[in-house]
Structures are given as structure tokens and as C-alpha cells.
């Protein structure tokens, strides 16, 4: 990031300042890292009530082609999920892959529900990667499929067990959504695209809205007694407890989706057919197992281990921490990192080297804190 570039602001910049947020540079934007309540209180609020996040810095775009199959296949050439078989209104998590199977970025893909949108996919990519992602996608599209950026839209996330009750008052159709589905609807009369998704491990919604209406939505949500604004600091501790990867930390160009244990995001048809960048490596890792895997780690004591800390077994360095911090819900330090598969079983005892000291740690199953997504019970096959 070129620090001489002026920092961008989201449409909610003034709203953050009015709340007394501490603003920090993040991915080229001035973003709220915390509000006056602080990260621990904000984290706890989102786990118990409903937290409101401004994630307008993320990159929104449309991938537009003549019909669903053409557009889906264009994206399948760049990412390993099954987009062809997405139902209208369904959303999927995937990764843009490099030729060697390394991860360029992770992103969300939605097939719009409205029939008149057939042939379009809605993309949301990470803020820090969006310029590169959009150039990469645009450069690899077949004739007839185009990428249209949506800088005119803001993105809000409402996350927590009381999020649905809040949405019921402003946007009742959204409460009927199942996890990872999306509808075009309105919020107090304002047109929005709402999905039942998020990155905290809680039930919740992501609301895409035109920039000019974002402050209205923000104010309407914040006026609800269940809702408080949550900054990037708590967003990070929430996603870490949920065992979710943060791009540039837990996943990057040096990691494959299989090493990162994102196997679930590569559907069966794509595994067998391939046809995405790095397919040979990924198919090999699926059958032979990868050289290293992402694991969760619980530390004994209270000292957190941070990104970059070495993981050791019997005195030998076997890996590195990629995310680490304090888990407010558990009141204990947690981390994620990569270790050889032989040392990845939950319960495996390892050491994490922090400031020259070996801290005892145990491999833990992910997520650290149980997720509470709004999944309908499966009926039939």
C-alpha cells in the first residue's frame, strides 16, 4: 500500500466519527477499529445482541454474461467452487486461485434471485485485494462476459443472535432467508440486496445498499436497542473465534485451499472435473493430503501468540502462527497456524515460541466458539 495515497472514506465516515470511533488506515480506507466501548465490550455485544459493521470498503462487483451457464463457467475458470449449480438466490464462498493453486483472494459469489438478473453473478471481494482481483478477473473473461464494479454501493453487516429480530422491524422478508441465501428487497422502503451471511460465526445479514442511502440504514439499525456499532478490532476477534480465515494472514498466495482446510468450499463436480487454476495440485492434495494444514491452537496461560510466532514440536520448528490473539468469549488466547498433518489432530500438544519462551498449546478443533448460522434443517436427500 502506498502510504502517500490519500485515504478513502466510506459513506459512513461521518457516522463513525460522530460515535467517537478511533479511525485507522485499513486497506486504503479510514476505518473504525473500535468505538468508545472498546473491543472486548463490542465483541461481547455482537455475541449476545446484534453488532452493526460498516464493511463498505469491501469490493462489490457484478459479473455479467448472456446467461447463467456462460457467466458461471467464466468464473469457474478462475475459482474452484461449483457456480453452475448455484440456485437463484444462493450464495457461495470461494477463492480466486493462481496457476499454482495459491490463493489470490477469497470472496463471496451470489446468484441473484430475480429472473431478470439471469446471467449475472454478484461478487464481494476483500478490500485490500479488490483492485488486483478486479483486474485479474477482467483480464480472464471470455467474450460476452464483463465485470462491472459497483463503487456506488455500501455494505453493512448486522451480526448476532438478535439480528433477525431487528431485521423483522425494517426488512421482514430477510428473516425468512436461510444461511447463504440472498434476496432483493427493501429496508424501510429503501431498495437493498440482503443475504443471510457474515463473518462472525453468528446468525446475521449483509446488506448492500446505494451509498447515498447507507447513512439512513445505519441510523435506523443503530436506533434499535439491540444494536451497537462494532469496529474492525472486534470483527477480527469474532472471526478468529469462528475459525474463519483472514486473507493476507491465514491464506495468501503461498497457501492452497486444501492446506487451509477449505475443502468444503470445493464441490464434488469441481473436484473431479478440475478446470480451475491449480487443479492438478489441488486434486493431488485432496487424494494424497497436503504438506501442511491450518489448525486451531489453544494456549495455556494468558499470553497471546501473534501472527508470525513459530510453532514447535519436541524443540523443532514445525510451523508458524498466521492469526493469534485473545478470545474474549473464551477468556483465553487462541491462534491459527499451519503444521504438518501428522501434528494436526485435535489434542496434539505443541509449543508456540513467544519472545524466546515456549508456550504450551494444544491443537483445537475449529471453530473455537460454536457457530450459530441460520441453517434450516435438511429435508430429504
Amino acid at each position, binding site marked *: 500500500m502506498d502510504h502517500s495515497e490519500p485515504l478513502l472514506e466510506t459513506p459512513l465516515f461521518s457516522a463513525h466519527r460522530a460515535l467517537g470511533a478511533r479511525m485507522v488506515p485499513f486497506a486504503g480506507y479510514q476505518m473504525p*477499529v473500535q468505538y468508545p466501548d472498546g*473491543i472486548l465490550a463490542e465483541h461481547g455485544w455482537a455475541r449476545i445482541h446484534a453488532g452493526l459493521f460498516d464493511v463498505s470498503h469491501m469490493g462489490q462487483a457484478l459479473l455479467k454474461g448472456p446467461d447463467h451457464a456462460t457467466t458461471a463457467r467464466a468464473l469457474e475458470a478462475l475459482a474452484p467452487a461449483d457456480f453452475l449449480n448455484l440456485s437463484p438466490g444462493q450464495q457461495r464462498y470461494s477463492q480466486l486461485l493462481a496457476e499454482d493453486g495459491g490463493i489470490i483472494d477469497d470472496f463471496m459469489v451470489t446468484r441473484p434471485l430475480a429472473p431478470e438478473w439471469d446471467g449475472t453473478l454478484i461478487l464481494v471481494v476483500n478490500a485490500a485485494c479488490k483492485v488486483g482481483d478486479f483486474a485479474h478477473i477482467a483480464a480472464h473473461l471470455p467474450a460476452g462476459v464483463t465485470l462491472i464494479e459497483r463503487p456506488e454501493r455500501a455494505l453493512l453487516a448486522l451480526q448476532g443472535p438478535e439480528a433477525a429480530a431487528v431485521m423483522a422491524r425494517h426488512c421482514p422478508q430477510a428473516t425468512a432467508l436461510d444461511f447463504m441465501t440472498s434476496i432483493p428487497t427493501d429496508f424501510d422502503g429503501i431498495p437493498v440486496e440482503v443475504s443471510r451471511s457474515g463473518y462472525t460465526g453468528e446468525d446475521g445479514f449483509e446488506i448492500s445498499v446505494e451509498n447515498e442511502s447507507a447513512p439512513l440504514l445505519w441510523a435506523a439499525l443503530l436506533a434499535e436497542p439491540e444494536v451497537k456499532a462494532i469496529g474492525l*478490532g472486534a470483527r477480527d476477534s469474532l472471526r478468529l473465534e469462528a475459525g474463519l480465515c483472514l486473507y493476507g494472514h491465514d491464506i495468501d498466495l503461498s497457501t492452497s485451499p486444501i492446506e487451509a482446510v477449505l475443502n468444503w468450499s470445493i464441490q464434488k463436480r469441481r473436484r473431479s472435473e478440475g478446470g480451475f487454476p491449480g487443479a492438478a495440485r489441488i486434486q493431488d492434495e485432496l487424494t494424497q493430503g497436503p504438506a501442511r494444514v491450518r489448525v486451531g491452537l489453544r494456549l495455556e496461560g*494468558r499470553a*497471546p501468540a*501473534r501472527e508470525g510466532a513459530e510453532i514447535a514440536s519436541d524443540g523443532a520448528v514445525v510451523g508458524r502462527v498466521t492469526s493469534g490473539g*485473545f478470545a*474474549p468469549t473464551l477468556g483465553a*488466547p487462541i491462534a491459527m497456524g499451519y503444521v504438518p498433518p501428522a501434528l494436526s489432530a485435535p489434542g496434539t500438544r505443541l509449543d508456540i515460541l513467544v519472545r524466546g519462551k515456549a508456550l504450551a498449546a494444544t491443537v483445537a478443533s475449529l471453530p473455537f466458539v460454536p457457530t450459530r448460522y441460520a441453517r434450516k434443517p435438511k429435508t430429504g436427500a
Partner: protein
Amino acid sequence: MTSVRYTKDHEYVRVEGDVAVVGISDYAQQQLGDVVFVELPEIGKVVTKGGEAAVVESVKAASEVYAPLSGEVVEVNSELEGAPGLVNEAPEGKGWFMKLKLSNPAELDELLNEHAYKDFLDTLA
């Protein structure tokens, strides 16, 4: 009569007789946010002015705390082990870090008095 002195790294020293109570300032705790862990030195450790003396961890990051003065660590605040939040609640009270037996009390003159520290903070705003 005790007086408090500060460093530009936001540590404070409160001299009580021949020992100095060391911690981080209210400004420092505000900047750090919620403190979740403090790594304190061993009792008996000899620290040099400006050298690393402790580590304070917030939810987000680890920060080093430097010795504001040279001396020997004679006591540490063991309450911080179970209640690191004391650093946020009362940084210059129950959230103190360590007590130093000063080896060169003259160094105290190099630190900022309360007024000078406030002026320094104004330059950061």
C-alpha cells in the same frame, strides 16, 4: 510529597522514597485499548533506562514497555496476572507494573513532569 514523571513512550514513574513505581499512562492505556495480558519482569532483574522491561498485550497487539529509569526490579504487580484490565481501569493506581530500586536517581531529571507531558500529548492530537 510524591511527583509523577513521564517518558515520551508513555510510561510513568512515581517515586516513593528510594523506589519508583512504574506503569503506563492513561493516554497509553487508551491508545492500546483493552489490555488482556501483561508480561512482567522477574524480581531482581536489572533494567537500563530505555531498555525493554515488560510487554503489554491488548486484544489487537503486543507493545513493549521500556524502563523509564535504570534500576533493579524489587516488586511486580502480581494482580495483573489475573486482572490485566486493571491497566485500563486505573493505570496510575492499581494497574501499576513494577517497582524499581533506582541505580541512578539523577535520570529522573531527564523525564517530563506532568505539565510537560500534557503539552507533549497536545502535540500528538
